[in-house]
């Protein structure tokens, strides 16, 4: 049970809320309060557009605990249009083959539950092929 952690991470997970560095304008995700580019303090919240492209990907057949009922599923490194690289599941692929460079957009989905059927549900970002 990791309820405090899920609660703490809710904004970045539900809405892809990171930070923007006030010194060098670099966009930061996940938020870490220190700019990875210039080392300055970066605490200004920034909501990412959710658009990006597949940088690399793999398909999981032997899923870790908590994800067994979702296998097989595809995990990707997504290059956000603002710069950061994010690891996330791809969803709603249908019959579409995944390709490097494929444009994707963020959606908020149910990631897993935090234990058995009595536990809380965890929601967060995934990416799907761009719809329009």
């Amino acid at each position, binding site marked *: 049970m990791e309820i405090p952690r899920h609660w703490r991470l809710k904004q970045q997970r539900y*809405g892809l809320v990171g930070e923007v560095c006030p010194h060098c304008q670099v966009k930061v995700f996940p938020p870490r309060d220190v700019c990875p580019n210039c080392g300055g303090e970066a605490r200004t919240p920034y909501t990412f557009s959710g658009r990006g492209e597949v940088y690399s990907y793999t398909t999981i057949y032997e899923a870790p605990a908590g994800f067994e009922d979702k296998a097989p599923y595809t995990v990707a490194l997504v290059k956000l249009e603002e710069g950061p690289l994010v690891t996330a599941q791809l969803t*709603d692929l249908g019959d579409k083959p995944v390709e490097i460079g494929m444009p994707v957009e963020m959606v*908020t989905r149910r990631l897993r539950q935090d234990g058995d059927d009595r536990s809380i549900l965890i929601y967060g970002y995934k990416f799907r092929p761009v719809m329009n």
Partner: protein
Amino acid sequence: MTENKTLLKPSRPVGIVGYGAYVPRYRLPAKEVARMWTGGRAAGLPIKEKAVPGLDEDVITMSIEAARNAMKRAEIDPAEIRAVWIGSESHPYAVKPSSTIVAEAIGAAPHVQAADMEFACKAGTEAMVMAMGLVGSSMARYALAIGMDTAQGKPGDALEYTAAAGGAAFIIGPAEESLAVINASYSFVTDTPDFWRREHQIYPEHGQRFTGDPAYFRHITEAGKTLMEAAGTSAKDYAWAIFHQPNTKFPQKAAQMLGFSPEQIAPGLLSPVIGNTYAGAAIIGLTATLDIARPGDRILVVSFGSGAGSDAFDIVVTDKLLERRDKALKTQDYIARRTEIDYAAYARYRGKIRMK
């Protein structure tokens, strides 16, 4: 409009400032349900196919996407929303609101009312009436009302052909900012035992033939008729009409009973291709109709929820619709995004396979 005590007419004029739909991508053909339970008898199937949510979707995730589409059209600061109300019969939690998670996800929390509504298939329109009240009394500038469901029918039951997933979100706000003004609403409610689900039960029960005349048709026609009488209108005054759509035939017959033509209900009649989205059914018909409507068009919407009741709305489209409706995905974009599944995949996606 004639003054009439039965109408719910806000003292400050209100309307739809933004709207958004959501339909998940998977489709289960009705003939696939028939293959499983009736030896494939295809005669008299109630719809062509129904929308099925993916493994990572529920009323919360679907409401978030519909609300984001509504926000794109409304172009307002989410912090200005004073209420997030979600009507559904399939909230993921028995206790813990869907609405707080949706409010957080769209940036509306924390200065907000939030609650989950339940009234079978009319919980979404009930949320809309409440939002009209909050905005119409000037207690709030904007309120978000959502009707969304991932409905389940008992395997082999008549409802399994149609119980589907989808819905819509509406940001209700001042009429002068609206894409469509809501002149008034009227609700007709009685204690009618046509359909129910007891606590801890997975699947609903229904009163068989009780479903039709005493429940659906009585409430829809009374609500529609009373609203039109009070508003001094008749079917010919409306460009479009939407009636709750549990299947294909019921809304067609309701339209006929109230004097509407097949053309008037065509854009909003989605049940043949997405099924009955319960709390989302009437209002996703409204989003599809707004997607094609013209300024000045008058729209009648009548929902129906078992138990039973109907909410009727008298709506007029404004010029602002044309400026803002292309800012988000349209209802038909979601309907066109389609992956057909078989009964086995459906059983897995809907949690009908025991893993342990």
